[in-house]
């Protein structure tokens, strides 16, 4: 039982990170109906920005409270990563809006290749390890919970609450939901569609940057190619939850996190990704539009 709860906590941590990335996929998909393949690499850019800020802080200040350091890392990473996603949307996706469906998918894949190789060229191909920032571990009734895991889950909850408020209660969120339902009608009613889409990309990137910072803190190492696997898993999570649905993305992220940690705990660690992908295929056979996704109604 203890072992099970332990794995549950590990899964929750992993799932939180996947969920944060998955929101970026699902939001962009909801509003312009495209798979933003570069989102995984945006996450990696966020992790790298956090790494560089961490090193700058280490060089400038002899000792800095961890909370402040993490906050600064997160905020700078969010700003920088948002800027990347904003630029990419403007350069690579906007000119192709209204073009045929595969065109932005290809530019997104191209951007993903370009971003990871940009980081490889500018920062070098090697693993970048950082000293552990938070190392405290609590022991509650035989279950060890590290402070890192608590921070990840807390940050995720706070961000999700903030995000929920933003989407459901503000005029910005209303504009986003309007664009999601009918972009032309929203434009006719005076909503600046381009601006709303840009802000969607910025919000997605900011959440991915937080996920990147948390990833760096949790694993303590990052490489230029780190965007791919978490990116694909987060995308899987978004599809599993029903792409386009925000609660679905979080739910899917948690499910993928649980499947992964449980499979590596009880079966084999080598096949954990195979398990996650297989379960995706099985779920989609029975629920072809994900768990919380609205089934597409086709009109003739």
């Amino acid at each position: 039982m203890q072992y099970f709860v332990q794995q549950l906590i590990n899964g929750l941590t992993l799932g939180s990170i996947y969920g944060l990335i998955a929101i970026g996929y699902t939001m962009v998909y909801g509003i312009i109906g495209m798979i933003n393949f570069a989102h995984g690499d945006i996450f990696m850019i966020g992790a790298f920005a956090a790494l560089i800020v961490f090193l700058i802080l280490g060089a400038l200040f002899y000792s800095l409270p961890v909370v402040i350091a993490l906050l600064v890392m997160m905020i700078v990473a969010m700003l920088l990563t948002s800027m990347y996603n904003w630029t990419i949307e403007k350069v690579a996706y906007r000119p192709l809006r209204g073009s045929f469906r595969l065109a932005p998918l290809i530019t997104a894949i191209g951007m993903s290749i370009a971003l990871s190789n940009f980081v490889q060229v500018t920062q070098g191909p090697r693993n970048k390890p950082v000293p552990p920032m938070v190392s405290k571990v609590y022991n509650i009734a035989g279950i060890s919970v590290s402070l890192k895991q608590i921070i990840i889950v807390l940050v995720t909850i706070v961000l999700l609450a903030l995000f929920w408020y933003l989407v459901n209660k503000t005029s910005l969120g209303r504009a986003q939901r309007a664009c999601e339902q009918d972009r032309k009608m929203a434009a006719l009613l005076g909503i600046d569609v381009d601006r709303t889409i840009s802000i969607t990309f910025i919000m997605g990137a900011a959440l991915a940057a937080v996920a990147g910072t948390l990833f760096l803190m949790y694993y303590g190492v990052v490489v230029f190619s780190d965007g791919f696997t978490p990116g694909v898993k987060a995308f899987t999570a978004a599809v599993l939850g029903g792409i386009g649905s925000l609660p679905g993305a979080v739910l899917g992220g948690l499910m993928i996190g649980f499947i992964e940690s449980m499979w590596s705990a009880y079966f084999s660690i080598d096949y954990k990704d195979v398990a996650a992908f297989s379960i995706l295929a099985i779920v989609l056979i029975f629920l072809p539009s994900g768990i919380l996704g609205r089934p597409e109604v086709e009109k003739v």
Partner: protein
Amino acid sequence: MAVTASPERDIVATPMQRATREALYAGAIALGLFVLFIGLKTNQNISNELILEQRWGLLAIVVVLTMAGRFLYVAYGQPFLANQKIADVATGLLPESVATRFFRLPYFLAAIVTVAVLVFLAGPLDGLLGPGLAGYARFLRALAIIYALASVLFYFRTFIHAHFSALGITALALYPVIVVLVLALYGGSVAAGFQGSLKWVDNFGIQILIYVMLAWGLNIVVGLAGLLDLGYVAFYAVGAYAYALLGTHYGLSFWILLPAAGAMAAFWGVLLGFPVLRLRGDYLAIVTLAFGEIIRLVLINWREVTNGSAGISGIPKVTFFGLISFNVSDPNYIAKVFDIATSSAYYKIFLYYLILGLCLLTAFVTIRLRRMPVGRAWEALREDEIACRSLGINTTTTKLTAFATGAMFGGFAGSFFAARQGFVSPESFIFLESAIILAIVVLGGMGSLVGIAVAAMVMIGGTEVLRELDFLKQVFGPDFTPELYRMLLFGMAMVIVMLWKPRGFVGSREPTAFLKESRAVSGAFTKEGHG
């Protein structure tokens, strides 16, 4: 006359002011994007700790270059293109386009003279200029040759356009012969010709043709049936491992295993097809991607059979139907049979013709299938699934045959790949490969075989050319390795080509069924890859 608002005229009107403003914006954004990533570099010191290295000079150069580029584009590039558009509209049917101004007889003659001078005086010039400038001279020579060839192509463009397929196939069939001949003349002996041709035939010829074949195979799934497949590389892997495992363990011949590998890949295609029958669009995309990853992960982790990430080596070579072998130790080795000098180039040239044959087979089957009921059903399925069903087309078999046929060609290409490399490992079957193949299909203009071949040549050939740019070391110092930038440039090229031609190189379609005469249809009227 009515005044019409035209974006072209606006761009022409006040370029300078706009250009300055845009350049400043671009500079500010570039500074923001690159300040941490180019301005600072994370390096490991001796005790394996990360330290920061400052590169503000490089950052400044990059930002200034971005600003200059943006300024030039807005100030001169955009007005030029807009003027061109206006001129094209005004002159009507025969606009004096950029191309006719670019390719002119005097320039052509100048290019020929440059090439002649540089080739015949190569020896003395190298001594005169020293190694640094000689690199530039070689680059200039390459540019002049490319320009001269392009001019010839441009001059004969109507002829080439009319007989494109025949000319293309002839050129491909003669390619190794021409390479060997030219290099033999250049090097002074036949042996030198064969030795020098290795790189050209292998890196450019075979490499490009493998991608042409893969892209043509994927074209059946994406371009004809309209099913978005992001895991095509899985079938390539199945084919490669089928040949590698059966060939090394049972010693079976390539010619038996080629159809076997194709059949196995087709079987996996059907297996993937079943669960995804009900899925559409992006759900289909993610499941195919997941399938590709599953195959790769199984190849990595099933160590007893696949030898894990270490891969399988010592895969037997292809023989010429068992009659002529390419192993030096065999009694029927090609050099012994024909009594000629030993060279590894024969095998490469043989492989070149083998993959060319496989490519042509793929093209032939695709062209024939498009005229058969099943091919028409694919294209109907791509356009409208519901209409298809109501007309009594069995969408299940239609989708499954598309997956199986596409996968089969992937399997053929895979077993060829294994035979060519002599070594396979899961490294070769990553998602990036699927992405590259899909990009070639889309960039070529989906459904168009010629366009896809051109796209493969441009994208794969372009990245191969980057390996050859040694003269850049003269410019950026000896530490500069152009290969590092290969994939960065590849990704950027994908974006730029897509922005420039969103419908791909060949955006029009030849209909297979028509009433009175066959007329090419704009690609804008067809639907693609929607699930």
